[in-house]
């Protein structure tokens, strides 16, 4: 997203001056109720349509997940896991993966580019791509493995929680689209209350460990899950049980920073000489040409 927002800022990466904050906004959250999610991928399509980004048509690699992973052009994907309980009961766990919008965002902490990552006062963590230097620190800083660096412009991209929509009083595109009401959006307080009702229902249906995923290791998140098995978040395609910002980020902010900056400078210089001597990278030829049919 760009920085042309009508939202106030709470913090900015690598910046020490105060952030604009005359307006007060409500802390928001998106609640994903996995027990209602059918994995239809309408949210994936809505995300691509609203943000006008989409990956190429890929291939099937033996699972329902498609695209197979997040990318600079795919900001949310459905992760499918077939999980067999000890009693043999099968569950098909389908988790919508994307940025969790941490209250204490590791990406923002790790980012060396001033103002490239911001957190609005409503809690949304946004990448301001025009300030991004493509160093990849946000990738290291993220405990959820979310940001992706674009091969096209070397900038980092991820879910914005539709900050542009939220800024004008709309819900995110994925929420608007979800046909079963598995994704809802509102104040964080309301979402926690709503999750509470869902958890009562799930417990009544025999899911004794149903609970809310709002991990405190990152100060809580602005994207939360209702899980049937909140005691085992990792069964949901590796959702971290207790996410924390990598200690490397703290280290980076301290002693290693000058050293790292030096390495980064050298790398950039090397890249420049590579470009001058070899030229720009070409995209690989379409590896699917073998499947093009014979012309009649």
């Amino acid at each position: 997203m760009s920085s042309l927002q009508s939202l106030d800022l709470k913090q900015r990466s690598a910046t020490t001056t105060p952030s604009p904050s005359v307006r007060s906004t409500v802390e928001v959250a998106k609640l994903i109720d996995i027990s209602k999610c059918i994995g239809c991928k309408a949210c994936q399509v809505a995300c691509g349509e609203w943000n006008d980004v989409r990956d190429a048509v890929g291939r099937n690699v033996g699972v329902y997940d498609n695209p197979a992973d997040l990318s600079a052009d795919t900001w949310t994907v459905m992760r499918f896991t077939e999980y067999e309980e000890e009693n043999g009961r099968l569950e098909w766990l389908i988790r919508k993966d994307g940025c969790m919008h941490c209250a204490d965002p590791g990406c923002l902490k790790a980012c060396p580019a001033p103002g490239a990552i911001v957190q609005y006062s409503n809690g949304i963590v946004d990448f301001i791509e025009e300030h991004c230097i493509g160093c990849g620190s946000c990738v290291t800083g993220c405990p959820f493995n979310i940001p992706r660096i674009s091969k096209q412009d070397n900038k980092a991209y991820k879910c914005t929680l539709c900050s542009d929509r939220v800024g004008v009083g709309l819900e995110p595109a994925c929420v608007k689209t979800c046909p079963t009401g598995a994704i809802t959006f509102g104040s964080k307080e309301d979402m926690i209350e709503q999750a509470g009702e869902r958890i009562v229902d799930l417990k009544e249906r025999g899911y004794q460990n149903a609970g809310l995923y709002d991990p405190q290791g990152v100060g809580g998140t602005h994207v939360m899950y209702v899980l049937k098995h909140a005691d085992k978040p990792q069964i949901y395609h590796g959702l971290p049980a207790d996410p924390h910002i990598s200690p490397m980020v703290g280290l980076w902010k301290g002693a290693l920073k000058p050293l790292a900056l030096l390495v980064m400078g050298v790398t950039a210089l090397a890249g420049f000489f590579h470009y001058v001597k070899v030229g720009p990278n070409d995209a690989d030829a379409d590896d699917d040409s073998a499947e093009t049919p014979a012309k009649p």
Partner: protein
Amino acid sequence: MTNHWVDIKNADIVLIMGGNAAEAHPCGFKWVTEAKAHNKARLIVVDPRFTRSAAMADYYAPIRVGTDIAFLGGVINYLLSSDKIQKEYVKSYTNASFVLNKKYRFSDGLFSGYSDAKRSYDPATWGYDKDKAGYAVVDETLQHPRCVFQVMKAHYSRYTPEMVSNICGTPKDAFLKICEMIGSTAAPDRAMTILYALGWTQHSTGSQMIRTAAMMQLLLGNIGISGGGMNALRGHSNIQGLTDLGLLSNALPGYLTLPRQEEQSFEGFVKARTLKPLRPNQMSYWQNFPKFHVSLMKAWYGNAATRDNNWAFEYLPKLDKDYDILQAFELMGQGKINGYICQGFNPVGSAPNKAKIVGALSKLKFLVIIDPLATETSEFWKNYGPYNDVDPAKIPTEVFRLPSTCFAEEEGSLTNSGRWLQWHWKGADPPGEARGDPEIIAGLFTRIRAMYAKDGGAFADPIVNLTWAYKIPAVPAPEEIVLEYNGKALADLTDPKDATKVLVKAGDQMPGFAFLRDDGTTSCGCWIYSGAWTQAGNQMARRDNSDPYGMGQTLNWAWAWPVNRRILYNRASSDPSGKPWDPKRKLVFWNGKAWDGADTPDMRPDAAPEENVGPFIMTAEGVAKLFVPAGLVDGPLPEHYEPFESPIPVNPMHPRNPNVRANPAARVFKDDLEAFGTPKEFPHAATTYRLTEHFHYWTKHVESNAITQPQQFVEIGEDLAKEKSIKDGDKVKVRSNRGQIEAVAVVTKRIKALECNGQKVHTVGIPNHWGFKGVAKMGYLANTLTPFVGDANTQTPEFKAFIVTIDKA
């Protein structure tokens, strides 16, 4: 649907079987999540695969493909033998008490009246005993040995839990658990809804599968009540509209039927359809058939349809046989059909045995395609490598493509699964030279008519005399077409009790079908749609969602047929005295003077409960039919038969009678019989289906859909994968006796091997969305594999159960 989408939220139990609502109807499935969230509903899913619906279920059980009658017959046996039925409902609202003809028999898998040579039944022995007045004999104690209740009890006593488990492969404890959950809804204050779709219709026993479920619902008292019903989820936004308007080879609009060849006399044709009541005081609404039929002929032929010419009866074709899609392609292959107009239909992808379809199309002189997309059918003649390996030089068929509009590029009405006609408005202009379907058809028709008018021809009358009173004859407007369906008065219609009182003025739109006449003074193009566009305007465009009873009925949102009734048979929601069975579900009740409530009553408004008018007004019995004396070609009670291609070599219900292994009354053409495979060569069960990410063969033309599910795959269980050394992502080839496809393997825990009749049955799941046109990766049409046989009654192809073999490619 007997009920409607929103009403699903009122269910206590939702049974998804013969369908996969979460996968194929994701938007409608929201009402299941509503029922779970706000009504504490429990969701049961029975399916050969652990589907997206199963992922949402409170209880899931596997079943072998094509064995649903065995499963449901087992549930009926459980309900009857453990007395989990709503007795008062069964006694008063079904034909349980009707006494059957002495000659009715069922033995060795066959009902009485079967002819081996004709592979068909004469239903003469399936009727009721009649009294002197011509009424059916009943025994309200349900004890008579020949009453439907006792006959049914005996028939299904063979469907023991052991037998069910043996045939279906469903573990016995899972089956019994589901029986218990279903049985809980026999209580008058509990309701179960059944959501099904092509998982039941696409079998050689499809109609009977649906009937078995309906019988189960009747025993539980779940029909006609809020949160209950038999709910067919239609696979296309307007496929309900298609059937309503009679776009089937043997139908006329509004479920009127064409005469058969032997029905040359108009009187005989009318008499056979004007059903007299079989019990005293019953409405037997088809007694009004002449009004609907004559009004239709007046709409079509105006002044050319007169009493003297039997309302142009001779214009109607008389069927020597049904001309369903299977028959049409069989005849095409024989060279007997040599021109074909294919409107919004992609038979190369959508009809069984692709090789047969392409072979048949290759014999045509001309093929006209009316479609917004370049379909596989429009390019059946073009070589697409292994995906369509044909030689264009050897195909003489001339193909014309007439590009049409998409739904968003036109206005009109769509009829949803819940029978709501909802008007929609145009969102965009069509691209290029695309035209709306009415304009294309009108263009063809007006030219053909001009040629007949000028040059004459064999039997030109039905063509030159057809009413075509549109302002611009070559471009009929959707409004004009609906006005015609709704019908109008051709003369002042006076009150039969008071000739001075005019009910409808000449030229006015009909208020509803109750005002139609059989004397030529009314016209109506589709009687069930009468009321959609009245003098008060377009009822389908109404958008008031107020819900005064809080039951989701919203009678002022759009318009539902018939007469804006949202739940069919809703009189059955009250007991015989007119009091709601469940005070929480006050759908329709007797208020002392009239029927009242949250819905348009399905009853004569002033028929006091003491008159004993049964709630199933369309039947001659006045009650619902557990046993069907006439109307189905393959038996009055559902019986389990194996699919035509089954991994099990015998019918475990009748292991010693090979003639009843598969449906003995289903039509099979000779070449197709020979194209069936044997379990020895093709040991695995297979089934085809849709995925949420795609809609049929359309959305592979759409980039966003192609991204979310880009490439053809087949699903197999871990056991079979191990046996065949297949890993996730491997290329595999799947072969039936009719052809072979290649796809990526998805190895899954969601398809388990089942133990059936002493053998292990693996199932291969084959999604059907890929082909050789579009922006998704090219793939093989799934119907390369499927068998060319249909349901005995509807001829809907058996896409859901056949046999294959699979190997690593």
